[in-house]
């Protein structure tokens, strides 16, 4: 379980600090798939960076009940761009997060290859990143995050830069991967349909400063259909609420 409590974050600016997040609370159960939706620039990415410890919040805490475990990292991120290190072969890119954990070389290699096998790219281990397609690189980025065996796998619009067909394929692969590994996932997107299709629960982040405005359980059984009526109704409801906030924010 991951507990995020009373998270507040402000960035310094010329006219005093701008509060981005205020009193953000979210609890994510182990093995749960949670999606965070919100308008562009509302602070979704920032939220992930705070949880990952890349940005220090003014107040609040992020706690994982799994505690520190050797050979693992508590949080792992998948970015919108694959962020391959072009000078490393695919398998060495996957090993990136495993370095510095005091693991023997063979163990690192084994875990990297296992993670690559999970995303179906074990046979591409010795390629250079530039030899892969955009979708394959994004799979490698997912493998890199999985390799560190995180308590929470965070994904920041990971399929946003892909073409529609590749995006759908990767969405289905992600659900499959999640069911096989039992990982806890926090998935950020501005695509409400994507969130409803993938997640158990959809959290709406809105307002300025941003906070949790609503939470919707998506009870549609898996495997899901993209045109499921119940999911569509949920997405429509979230979309309505979101547009209310956007209008308020614009002062209309």
């Amino acid at each position, binding site marked *: 379980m991951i507990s995020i409590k009373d998270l507040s974050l402000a960035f310094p600016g010329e006219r005093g600090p701008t509060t981005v997040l205020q009193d953000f609370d979210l609890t994510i159960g182990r093995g749960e798939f949670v999606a965070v939706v919100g308008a562009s620039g509302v602070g979704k990415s920032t939220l992930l960076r705070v949880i990952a410890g890349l940005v220090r919040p003014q107040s609040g805490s992020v706690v994982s009940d799994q505690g520190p475990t050797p050979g693992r990292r508590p949080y792992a991120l998948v970015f919108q761009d694959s962020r391959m*290190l072009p*000078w490393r*072969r695919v398998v060495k890119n996957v090993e990136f997060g495993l*370095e510095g*954990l005091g693991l023997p070389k063979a163990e690192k290699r084994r875990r990297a290859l296992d993670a690559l096998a999970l995303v179906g790219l074990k046979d591409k281990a010795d390629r250079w*990143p*530039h030899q892969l397609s955009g979708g394959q690189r994004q799979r490698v980025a997912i493998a890199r995050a999985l390799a560190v065996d995180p308590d929470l796998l965070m994904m920041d619009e990971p399929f946003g830069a892909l073409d529609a067909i590749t995006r759908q394929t990767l969405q289905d692969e992600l659900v499959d991967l999640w069911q096989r590994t039992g990982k806890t996932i926090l998935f950020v997107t501005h695509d409400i349909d994507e969130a409803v299709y993938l997640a158990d629960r959809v959290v709406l982040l809105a307002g300025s400063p941003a906070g949790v405005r609503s939470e919707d359980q998506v009870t549609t059984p898996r495997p899901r259909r993209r045109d499921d009526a119940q999911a569509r109704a949920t997405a429509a409801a979230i979309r309505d609420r979101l547009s209310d906030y956007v209008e308020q924010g614009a002062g209309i």
Partner: protein
Amino acid sequence: MPKPSQSKRLLLAFAGVAAFLLLWEAVPWFGLVRPILLPPPSAIPETFWREVQSGAWHTAVLSSLGHYLWGLFLGSFLGVALGVLAGMSRSLEDFTSWVVRLLRPIPGLAWVPFAIIWFGVTPSAAIFIIVVGVFWINFFAALGAVQAVDRDLIELADAFGHRGPVAKLFKVILPASVSPIMAGLRTGLGQAWMAVVAAELFGVPGLGQRMMQASSLLATDIVVVYMITMAVLYGIIDSTFVAVRDRLLRWKA
């Protein structure tokens, strides 16, 4: 498999060299210039053989190579190291910015008087001149390279637990900067040969000194022997460097 045009291009290149040598040979042959001012290429092999037999060639080449390699190594290492540090630390860059602006435009050769005063007419003086010659090229290449490293990759290092400056340096910053740093090093390879000749002109034993001696005796054929020697040495060193570089950068598309 060479394409058909490949052999044609090679043939043209050879033809170009032949034409150049022919023209060179013709100018003194037709008396346009006295051979003492421009020795014909046909006279060079014999002069070269005499230099080798007297032992002067070995001595000069070994001595110059020593200066070259030491100067190149020290200058490149210091330039890259300080450039990387200045690139990583904003305050260090600001701290050094005016000193850099002040020292940078002074040509390496302007340091000759100080080189002699500090080191005397010794190999160290020659090495010092070479170090100054290659330092700035590498300093600016490394500084620019480090500052141009993709911030997203730095963030990636942070996200995957490589948070200290040393971890970031070796996991991301240096590998991401290899290509432009290599370009700086390669420019230095050429620059250092110029500095070698200049540094030896004032009497430190080596190619430069031997050329000076020869020119004062109007033995222009000997001068040409060492000019060619330098060109060949540079060619060998540069192509070795390119081979190593291409191996290091084989991840590039």
